């Protein structure tokens, strides 16, 4: 079992004719993902690595029954690509693109409230159900099948934590990189809810970072609704206040909220142990599963 993606998922890759889109479409297929179509305006009729390309996502849905989109469209056009995927009544859209203007995402956010489609990202590595399918750019080889759900705001940090788990023989149901942008689709709370409802997920790793209040909200949600044991990690403990570190999200305002301390203490209060190192996170999960 898993959440959101499995080997039945039928994927359309938006932007499949671009360098990134083509490379990762191939990587996804190599991993076993069922990539059924590409969608690129004015490129319909072509084939990319054996995958038929359509001019619109709607055609890909009509012709190939695609139910999930992975978006590798340049930032200037990515907002429109997300709107197109939402309008096509897909189950899931995964936006990998980094650098989408924030105002475009605010409009997407409004539309999300009006549709049934779930968005992951943007500016995220995607998600993977080990042994079944991956959607996005995660390096498949570090993952293993298992019973730990993982949700993270950061891409490479996810890999690091997964590596620690896999090296100990602890596999994952699904790992979700939700992205570090100011406005994202699926957030911690949404992902935690999915894992809580998944009977095969026996423990959850949640990797947060400084900035915003998503981790604090997640802690409150865990406290109230999540019975599955959760271990946390917060990156940026040593970040000085007021400095922006990479992600738009990772800025510490210095006003007490959004700091590593505030997040760690909120999680601890919700019964979530927070590791000092990725290995410590794996220690906690090992204990949960023992």
């Amino acid at each position: 079992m898993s959440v959101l993606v499995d080997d039945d998922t039928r994927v359309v890759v938006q932007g499949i004719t671009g360098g990134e889109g083509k490379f990762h479409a191939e990587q996804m297929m190599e991993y076993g993902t069922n990539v059924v179509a590409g969608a690129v305006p004015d490129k319909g009729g072509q084939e990319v690595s054996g995958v038929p390309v359509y001019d619109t996502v709607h055609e890909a849905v009509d012709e190939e029954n695609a139910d999930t989109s992975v978006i590798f469209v340049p930032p200037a056009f990515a907002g429109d690509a997300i709107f197109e995927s939402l309008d096509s009544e897909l189950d899931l859209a995964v936006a990998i693109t980094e650098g989408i203007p924030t105002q475009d995402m605010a409009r997407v956010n409004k539309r999300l409230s009006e549709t049934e489609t779930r968005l992951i990202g943007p500016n995220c590595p995607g998600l993977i159900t080990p042994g079944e399918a991956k959607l996005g750019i995660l390096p498949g080889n570090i993952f293993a099948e298992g019973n730990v759900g993982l949700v993270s705001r950061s891409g490479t940090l996810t890999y690091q934590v997964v590596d620690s788990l896999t090296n100990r023989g602890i596999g994952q149901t699904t790992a979700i990189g939700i992205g570090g942008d100011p406005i994202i689709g699926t957030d911690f709370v949404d992902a935690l809810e999915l894992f809580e409802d998944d009977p095969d997920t026996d423990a959850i790793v949640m990797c947060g970072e400084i900035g915003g209040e998503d981790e604090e909200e997640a802690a409150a949600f865990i406290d109230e609704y999540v019975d599955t044991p959760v271990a946390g990690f917060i990156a940026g403990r040593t970040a000085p206040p007021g400095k922006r570190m990479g992600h738009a999200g990772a800025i510490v305002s210095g006003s007490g909220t959004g700091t590593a301390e505030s997040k760690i203490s909120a999680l601890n209060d919700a019964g979530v142990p927070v590791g000092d190192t990725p290995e410590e996170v794996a220690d906690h999960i090992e204990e949960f599963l023992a």
Partner: protein
Amino acid sequence: MKLHEYQAKTVFADAGIPTPDSQLASDVDGVVSAAEEIGYPVAVKAQVQVGGRGKAGGIKLVEDADEAREAADSILGMDLKGYHVDRVLVEEAVDFVNELYVGITMDRGEGKPVAMVSTKGGVNIEEVAEEDPDAIAREHIDPSFGMHPYQARKAVYDAGVDQSVARDVSSVLTTLYQLWDDKDGADAEINPLMVTADDEVIAADAVMNIDEDALFRQPELAEMEEEAAGGDELEQKADEYGFDYVRLDGNVGIIGNGAGLVMTTLDLVDHYGGQPANFLDVGGGAKAARIANALDMVFSDDNVDSVVFNIFGGITRGDEVARGINEALEQFDEIPKPVVVRLAGTNWEEGMEILNEDLVTVEQTLEDAVQRAVEYAGEVNDQ
């Protein structure tokens, strides 16, 4: 991208927001002639983007040519919190009876824009937000509709603005939202929005930050001259290279890919008793040349005693990283600072094979790599 006050004021004025008469000047004579033209009293305002310009002596009110000359003399060329002042805005001094605050920003938590109005203008609005949050009226905007006129009125009346100026303040707020929306603003603020004895409102300051990710569709703004990055020269260099870089106080240089992982590396340095010298994220998919630039950056920092290079490849490939490290280090007769490398993820084995282990120390895990780098830094300090 943060516009200068003079640039933001031009943008605001073009949109119809009342601003004081003003001219930009870059030498003393220019200041005096601008002041004569505008008419005394005028304010002479340093055009650098740091908070608290006034307190730091960067804004002076002058009544005549002598004072103008004196002010220009003292402000032009001064160092204001690490920024060199080479231009001032000479601006009509406005007699006011009230100072308001109006602003638009993105409320990240709500995922939508928010308009803010307060009668506590003219002071640090972040402090007001902290100490007296109810003094700021907030109205969230649905970005698909834009700001409705009634929302501007509601924010203005909720803030307790006088009825006599409510219409004008609403109109300024509506225009400000329009600008924010049209120009891909991150923040747009007027603080203070002055109210005169005649119930006129006038934007005495102007802040406009543009979403960097949207500059591609804001050609006019993208062309505006950006401030020469002030302050730390390494941060200027990072800017040129296009790295996310923050300089810190320690001696362990840190390079990695992905903000979360780099922050984690910093945290581990701290955890193992070391002190991070910097945050440096090479980003996703870095090629060899970029990796070499990153090493060059960190070597340029005199405080750095050792370097930890932590790459977990997703779209970044281990072989490219290894090649970049080799290239960067092979040009030295002697490696300036010990470099510990840890490669994982995509093509890590290839990378390991490529790496010249005469030049770097290779570790298999993040923990080992960080500990080794902390050790090296300690050894240097012990020398």
